[in-house]
């Protein structure tokens, strides 16, 4: 759906040059929800704004739905933009218009006949659950309702692609969740491709299929959300994942768990699991089979889309030989084992 090749963007301001995007390449598939995460100033907004040419790329090409956006003339570009919806952190609704007329706005731009447009607006308001607010002005709505209007507006001309620039960053967690759910619903119902940027890993976790991590103007990691969560490859990704899932083990635990006591050894391990194995009683069968004692130090189970995923930090006490076999057993069951202490 989107094909970005070797995209670079340099902002030239008052004698200074800022390299906001450095040779970025990226492909977003049709129908997927693709997230881009990065710290403030990493270049996220620049990247998403290049896709509908709100920013003109310095170098590289962008193709959306088979059309090279970067080489279109002004008229063609305007037409292409009608088919690329966008929602914003600050909603950007017109205060001079009612909710109804705000959703009507893109249809006016596209010169859709009035009767047809009216019908379309009604449908959209129904879709986002704001039929009863049609006559209100944006100033009378809550943040979440405003963003629903923004979404309805972005969908008005039946786009194939929706761009979301921090659409939930101005909302509280609960409202964020309801907006994300709406996005997920329209992604499924309309087979709409969504590209969203955020600095919140929770957003990625809730709705995205794939994620790209952007750091210092470059994409440093790209992959399925589940993979990036369970096995982040870069320090940037790790810190984002850790913000959502606590992987770190407190230092005092590492020390207290190293003592040896006669025949038995104590080891601290972290078990990471994804998918079906999370539902099986593997730990208890390990305890029975290898005659080890288990002390659960810390645990976290989460869901990414419909896949359970998480990690357990365990203190395992047992005969060294049996401990080794126990670990192998868990590995054999598809779990990932990381030994945090070695006695």
């Amino acid at each position, binding site marked *: 759906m989107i094909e970005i090749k070797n995209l670079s963007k340099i902002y030239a301001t008052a004698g200074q040059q800022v390299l906001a995007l450095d040779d970025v390449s990226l492909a977003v598939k049709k129908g997927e929800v693709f997230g881009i995460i990065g710290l403030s100033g990493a270049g996220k907004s620049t990247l998403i704004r290049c896709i509908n040419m709100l920013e003109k790329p310095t170098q590289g090409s962008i193709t959306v739905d088979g059309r090279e956006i970067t080489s279109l003339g002004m008229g063609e570009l305007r037409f292409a933009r009608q088919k690329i919806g966008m929602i*914003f952190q*600050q909603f950007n609704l017109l205060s001079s218009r009612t909710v109804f007329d705000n959703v009507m706005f893109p249809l006016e731009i596209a010169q859709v006949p009035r009767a047809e447009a009216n019908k379309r607006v009604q449908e959209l308001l129904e879709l986002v659950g704001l039929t009863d607010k049609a006559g209100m*002005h944006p100033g009378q709505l809550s943040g979440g309702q405003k963003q629903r209007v923004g979404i309805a507006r972005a969908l008005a001309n039946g786009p194939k692609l929706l761009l979301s620039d921090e659409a939930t960053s101005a909302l509280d967690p609960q409202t964020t969740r309801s907006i994300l759910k709406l996005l997920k619903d329209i992604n499924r119902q309309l087979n709409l491709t969504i590209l969203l940027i955020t600095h919140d890993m929770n957003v990625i976790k809730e709705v995205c299929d794939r994620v790209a991590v952007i750091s210092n103007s470059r994409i440093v990691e790209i992959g399925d959300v589940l993979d990036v969560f369970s096995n982040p490859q870069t320090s940037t990704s790790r810190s984002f994942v850790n913000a959502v899932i606590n992987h770190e083990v407190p230092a005092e635990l590492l020390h207290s768990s190293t003592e040896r006591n006669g025949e038995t050894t104590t080891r601290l391990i972290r078990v990471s699991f994804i998918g079906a194995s999370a539902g099986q009683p593997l730990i208890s069968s390990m305890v029975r089979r290898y005659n080890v004692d288990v002390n659960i130090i810390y645990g976290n189970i989460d869901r990414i889309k419909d896949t359970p995923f998480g990690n357990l930090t365990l203190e395992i006490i047992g005969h060294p030989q049996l401990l080794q076999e126990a670990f192998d057993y868990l590995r054999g069951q598809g779990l990932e084992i990381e030994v945090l202490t070695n006695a």
Partner: protein
Amino acid sequence: MLELLGNNSWVVDKVLVATWETIYMVLISTVLSYLFGLPLGIILVTTAKNHIMENKGLNRVLGSIVNAARSIPFIIFLILLIPLTRFVVGTPIGTVASIVPLTIAAIPFVARMVETSLKEIEWGLVEAAVSMGANNSQVVSKVLLPEAMPSLLLGIAITAINLVGYSAMAGIVGGGGLGTLAYYYGYQRYEDTVMWITVIVLIILVQGVQMLGDNLAGKIANKRR
């Protein structure tokens, strides 16, 4: 006040006629100055750096002309424009003739007022429209102007009030209206009564225009809240 007038009922007639002349001059020149000043203000805004029709050269040229025009005192304008007025209206004297210098003096003022109003609009709104595929005239007519409407209306009121003042000045050099009345009777014939009545009528006019502007702007702003 009626007592003050006594049997001078001619004063009432004169004042009524002069008031109407002033309203007429101000109304027509306000309309005409917006006819030219509004597009000029829109161009000043949209050709500015990073705006939808960025054009450094045009922006600078228009900006300089507007600044130059605004630095000429109105009384000088009156004299400078006599040939033009004579050409357009046929005579430099009278109510209709005054409309020419009033309008021309107000155009650069209006352009700056409009520019200020439109600049207040959040850039995100313009970008949202552009991201939907709006062309420049759609951005102006569907975003900039409607969003700035309360502020634009206040600008119209301020312009009209300024023009009431200017029209009085024009009146002194034969432009008609309340200015001429005050000058002939108040200054040249020492009819203090006429002078004071003129002042009172002017105050009422200005108050009225301001209240009308505030009211309309307030109503619109309230509805949007």
